[in-house]
């Protein structure tokens, strides 16, 4: 039985990392209907900034974690301003193509630095012994990662539900012309969406980097890995990202814990999430919590 609970705990850990990586997608999609395919690269950038601040500039890791979120906030905001602002009003597909271009540019830039090819790991700053309770173990890094995830998601949900600026971001995704008619600045909203996505990406990158070590290909792969999570949750729902992230985490852990190696099955952890996704989308094409188009007849 403790094996089962161990899998549940690791499923939640993996799941909340997925969720944290996924909310960046959701934040951008929610206001501008754009899928940012360069999200994995932003995650990696955030992680490398945290690492540089901690190791090279000798700033305490908690502080460099916060600073990295702020730096990436402004970085993502400038990326939007430089590359995407002029595309407002153009077809969404062109904007998505630009994010593919961005992906290659950031890739190229990172390959110029040592981060592109070498592996790094954060200096340990939390107790190395895992917490063990009734035979179930979780490391401090994982626990802190889960807590950070839930704090951030709580903050973002509050922001979108309760603050006027947050509501205006949802309004822009609903009807751009109408939001302009009441004075919402659409470019500002898009900038803010990218900035908050950058902030969440930096947090995700730093948490992943602490748990798995810093490896560029692992980090930027998170941009793709979380795709099924985002689609399962419904592209524009923060809650959906969390629930879907944890569902995916649990499925993967159970698959690798119970199926792999038995019944002659291998690699089910990689396949099962996609099978589930396909089946679910047949019944719920908008994902678990995605917005349905309201059609009045």
């Amino acid at each position, binding site marked *: 039985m403790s094996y089962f609970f161990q899998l549940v705990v690791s499923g939640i850990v993996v799941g909340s990392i997925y969720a944290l990586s996924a909310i960046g997608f959701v934040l951008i999609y929610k206001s501008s209907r754009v899928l940012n395919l360069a999200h994995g690269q932003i995650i990696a950038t955030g992680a490398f900034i945290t690492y540089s601040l901690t190791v090279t500039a000798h700033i305490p890791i908690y502080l460099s974690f916060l600073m990295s979120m702020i730096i990436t906030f402004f970085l993502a905001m400038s990326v939007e301003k430089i590359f995407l602002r002029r595309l407002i*009003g153009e077809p969404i597909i062109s904007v998505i193509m630009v994010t593919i271009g961005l992906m290659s540019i950031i890739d190229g830039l990172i390959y110029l630095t040592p981060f592109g090819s070498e592996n790094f790991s954060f200096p340990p700053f939390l107790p190395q012994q895992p917490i063990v309770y009734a035979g179930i173990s979780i490391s401090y890094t994982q626990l802190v990662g889960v807590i950070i995830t839930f704090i951030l998601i709580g903050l973002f949900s509050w922001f979108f539900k309760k603050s*006027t*600026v947050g*509501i*205006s971001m*949802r*309004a822009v995704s*609903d*009807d*751009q*012309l*109408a*939001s*302009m*008619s*009441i*004075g*919402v*600045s659409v470019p500002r909203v898009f900038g803010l969406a990218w900035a908050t996505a950058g902030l969440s990406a930096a947090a995700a990158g730093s948490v992943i980097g602490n748990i798995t070590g810093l490896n560029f290909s692992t980090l930027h792969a998170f941009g793709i890995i979380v795709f099924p999570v985002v689609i399962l949750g419904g592209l524009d729902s923060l809650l959906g990202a969390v629930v879907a992230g944890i569902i995916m985490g649990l499925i993967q852990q159970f698959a690798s814990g119970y199926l792999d190696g038995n019944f002659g099955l291998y690699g089910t952890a990689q396949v099962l999430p996609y099978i589930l996704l396909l089946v679910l989308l047949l019944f719920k094409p908008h994902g678990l919590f995605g*917005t349905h188009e*309201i059609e*009045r007849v």
Partner: protein
Amino acid sequence: MNTNKTQHLLEVNNIEVVYNDIVQVLRGVSLNVPEGSIVALLGTNGAGKTTTLRAISGLLKPENGFIRDGFIKFMGEDITNVLGTQVVKLGAVMVPEGRRIFKHLTVDENIRVGSIIRKDGHQKIRKDHELMYRHFPRLSNITHRLAGYCSGGEQQMIAIARALMAAPKMLMLDEPSLGLAPLLVKEIFENIELINKQMNTTILVVEQNAKIALEISQYAYIMESGKIVLEGPSEELKTNPDVKEFYMGVTQGGGRKSFKEIKSYKRRKRWM
């Protein structure tokens, strides 16, 4: 009313609007809106009424439109080709045609987001928010419903309340009667009159329903093919035989003219 020399809140002077650098929609439109009044802009489909409102509220750009000639002044300040956000900040807010409420936001959120440009503190905004529910009691029972599921009349009220939350000096309404039942149209227009009187908001209303618009307005302009073809105090226009015939479908004898005749007459008029 336009003969006295008092300063107008809104002054549109001979504007020409082109879309995509080619299609000319407005060919020299001029109109004035005095402070505290209700002014109506009437005309048939495609006359350029919506374009005029969009030009004033700085919303031509998303449609690739541009004011090529003429100027617009609001409170003496030049707002020709100024961006929409700026116009709202100056105090002119438009309720777009077809209501355009935020479907996936609740009624409460829709109204609240209208205050986005305001900087005068939460207290005042909250007070105005409550005022909206007093003004539109129908909305106070459905604050948490998604606006997309509200009825057409409710949506029009939401759209007006949302615009009023910006505390505008001038409210522009683009066909508030569109797609509403006659009784509701009456209710909406009574509301507009109340807003004008109680909140001291100047109103510019674009309408196809000439009858009701002339009822509540003090002055009116009639547009056709991108030009103002007729203007005057609403009382006078109401009795003008041409207006009665073209826009209310009533002939001098009081009978109704057949649609075919009206059309041919109009075409002839354009030639002149």
